[in-house]
């Protein structure tokens, strides 16, 4: 009897901590916080899947054994041939697909064969907005809440659409394209507010984040990321962890006079929300212009992470991944909220694979960096100082005006750009789609002309060590090292999806949609789509009870604009230097804009 009990206990233990036992370790793997580990409803209502940004579904019908049988269930054309970075959403029996500019929202009826279109909503954004979109006219997705679908338009409006009927509920203008302001991010809805930010870090835009009332679309609060404390919503409750972030009006004093007014720090990436701590997390973009010699100082509060009170916008802490950023390293990448044991104590952490090439594990209650481990070849920095929270910049790679500095790794889009990782609640691993690239950089003096680019750099990029440009990495957060990596010819610009079937999905820029084994990294299935993939895969349970996987094809974005914008490969500095590395993409894929949905037979 006692023995049986012991065996049962051991079996239960094995079930709970499988990987740690196999690896012979005592500490458990990090896990999703309770607010993200709710029972699976089979829907995919927001691009991040949940407030913790794990992009994990508990659906397990598609597993490592049968994924090889996946087949196309239906397809749908978005009617737009630009970069498709959006995530297809599923709520109830409807699927929502958002196109790049002109930002058309389609609703598909999943109860009918072939998922026919139920309605489309066209916000008709200003065509001129295309001229102030730095990196293709992308949009990173709609978001669903309270019977409405919310999304941003390229000409800086936010709209709320009735999810049932497709009727416009409200539409709010938040930016001016004549100042280079556009919007590309997916909003996040928490409590009764819609959180959105502005794009335009390459146009001297002064970045901000705003909260809109979910019912009226009226602005509730707005916080800038440069300028005086009052504008940034820094008050007595602002308690940053590091001394370099403490002081009055650092948003003006860490800049040359008035440079903060065109200082960037835009908000165009992923937001996270911790309902237990009631904290909203958002990153801030690169300081403007790219040429750092124009802006001596730490350039607060650009290229960092803010924790804010979602009710008031008040800042709680800030951590700057790239003080006085010298290489366009926005900090807008996903922030995955996890619980993990750190040096024997349970910690609420925020995991951020940064453009700098470091994967940060940060205590999300205080902003303390617990670890920062490189996941990309580095020459731009020589290490990370945990005492000050700063990476050690390699002085040899610092830009000098009118001189070409060579072999800087990672590149301007960073070790990893916007395309989000996925965290498997089951394996406890992080799946990171990223790049392997280096660049040459010459700083030149830029002119600020409102509504035109404000960059001041000539760049050309090329493959990093090994000659491949993309990597799909399974990362052990606790150990701070990779478990396995799949090399890809082109940079990875698509998001990742993790499922309980131990299958992880991602797409490549030459058009392969891949399913890999979550533990071994073995490619179990792949299917060639009509154009390159830079979208975000999602999965859902259809009205028929079966599991489906959805992805948009349609190459573009910064990396793929050589195809989507018909750039001339003879100019290596095109697309801010990306074309130098992407010449071959024109020979392997063409423009597109198609939704693909897969299922088992």
């Amino acid at each position: 009897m006692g023995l049986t009990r012991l065996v049962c206990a051991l079996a239960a233990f094995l079930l709970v901590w499988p990987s740690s036992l196999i690896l012979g370790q005592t500490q458990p793997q990090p896990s999703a916080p309770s607010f993200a580990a709710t029972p699976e409803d089979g829907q995919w209502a927001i691009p991040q899947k949940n407030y913790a940004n794990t992009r994990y579904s508990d659906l397990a019908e598609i597993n490592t054994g049968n994924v090889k049988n996946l087949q196309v269930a239906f397809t749908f054309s978005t009617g737009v041939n630009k970069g498709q970075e959006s995530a297809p959403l599923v709520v109830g029996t409807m699927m929502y697909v958002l196109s790049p500019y002109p930002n058309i929202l389609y609703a598909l009826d999943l109860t009918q064969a072939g998922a026919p279109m139920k309605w489309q909503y066209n916000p008709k954004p200003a065509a001129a907005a295309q001229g102030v979109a730095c990196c293709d006219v992308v949009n990173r997705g709609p978001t669903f809440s309270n019977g409405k679908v919310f999304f941003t338009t390229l000409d800086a409006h936010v709209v709320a659409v009735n999810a049932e009927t497709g009727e416009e509920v409200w539409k709010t203008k938040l930016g001016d394209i004549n100042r280079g302001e556009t919007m590309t991010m997916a909003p996040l809805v928490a409590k009764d507010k819609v959180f959105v930010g502005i794009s335009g870090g390459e146009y001297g835009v002064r970045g901000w984040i705003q909260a809109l009332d979910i019912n009226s679309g009226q602005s509730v609060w707005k916080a800038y990321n440069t300028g005086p404390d009052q504008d940034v919503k820094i008050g007595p409750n602002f308690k940053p962890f590091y001394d370099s972030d403490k002081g009055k009006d650092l948003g003006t004093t860490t800049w040359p006079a008035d440079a903060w007014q065109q200082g960037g720090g835009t908000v165009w990436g992923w937001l996270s929300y911790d309902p237990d701590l009631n904290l909203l997390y958002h990153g801030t973009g690169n300081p403007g212009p790219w040429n750092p010699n124009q802006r001596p100082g730490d350039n607060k509060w650009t290229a960092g992470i803010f924790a804010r009170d979602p009710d008031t916008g008040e800042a709680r802490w800030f951590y700057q991944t790239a003080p006085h950023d010298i290489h366009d390293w926005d900090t807008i990448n996903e922030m995955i909220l996890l619980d993990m044991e750190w040096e024997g104590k349970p910690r609420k952490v925020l995991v951020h694979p940064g453009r700098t090439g470091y994967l940060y594990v940060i205590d999300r209650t205080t902003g303390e960096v617990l670890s920062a481990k490189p996941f990309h070849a580095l020459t731009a920095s020589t290490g990370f100082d945990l005492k000050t929270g700063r990476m050690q910049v390699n002085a040899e790679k610092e830009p000098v005006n009118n001189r070409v500095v060579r072999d800087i790794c990672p590149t301007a889009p960073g070790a990893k750009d916007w395309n989000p990782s996925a965290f498997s609640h089951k394996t406890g691993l992080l799946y990171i789609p990223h790049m392997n690239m280096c660049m040459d950089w010459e700083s030149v003096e830029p002119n600020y002309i409102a509504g035109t680019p404000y960059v001041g750099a000539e760049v050309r990029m090329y493959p990093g060590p090994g000659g491949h440009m993309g990597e799909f990495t399974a990362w052990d957060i606790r150990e701070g090292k990779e478990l396995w990596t799949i090399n890809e010819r082109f940079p990875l610009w698509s998001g990742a999806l993790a499922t309980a079937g131990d299958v992880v999905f991602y797409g490549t820029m030459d058009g392969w949609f891949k399913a890999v084994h979550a533990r071994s990294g073995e490619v179990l299935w792949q299917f060639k789509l009509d154009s390159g993939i830079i979208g975000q895969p999602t999965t859902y349970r259809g009205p028929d009870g079966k599991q489906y996987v959805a992805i948009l094809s349609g190459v573009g974005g910064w990396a793929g604009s050589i195809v989507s914008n018909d750039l001339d490969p003879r100019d290596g500095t095109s697309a801010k230097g990306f074309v130098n590395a992407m010449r071959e993409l024109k020979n392997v894929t063409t423009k597109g804009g198609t939704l693909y949905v897969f299922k088992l037979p």
Partner: protein
Amino acid sequence: MRTLLILPLLAFTLAACEREDREYRSNPVTAESQEKIALVPLSAGPGGPTEQRSGLGKEYEENAFHISQGQRFYVWFNCNGCHANGGGDSGPALMDDRWIYGGQIENIVQTIREGRPNGMPSFRGKIPDDQIWQIAAYIRSMGRNVPKPAAPGRKDDMSPGPAEQRRPPGEVIDGGQVPPSAQMPQ
């Protein structure tokens, strides 16, 4: 007799004064050169569109000084921010043969001044007329649609590829295509 001599002299002198008053340079910001050009090769009725060129375009695009000035202004006015060094970025490539709004220098001058619907800003009143012509002349050199001796032989900054002068003579295909994103299905 003396009066007869003085009168023509006076007339000549006055005429010279008149010549001195002539404007060699137009008022830099407000004045605009007016060329009669069409945006399309198609016209109502046979014979093609009616166009009238003053010859100003030829003066600019066959002149190395103007093209070289244009190369500087191209960067000063942030043209390179959207069109890179001719390969394009958020704006279309300028070194290739596709010209959505016409590839003759007069078309390019008009595009810079008026702007275009899919994102090209209007620079009217922001760039002096002669500098617009110089920029347009430089843009013509990117696809080597200017005489080889007039095209720039080098660039001061990071080399994007062979200099304009070393590129093979280009051609201009008018019309291009409407960017697919501009077509809204409805």
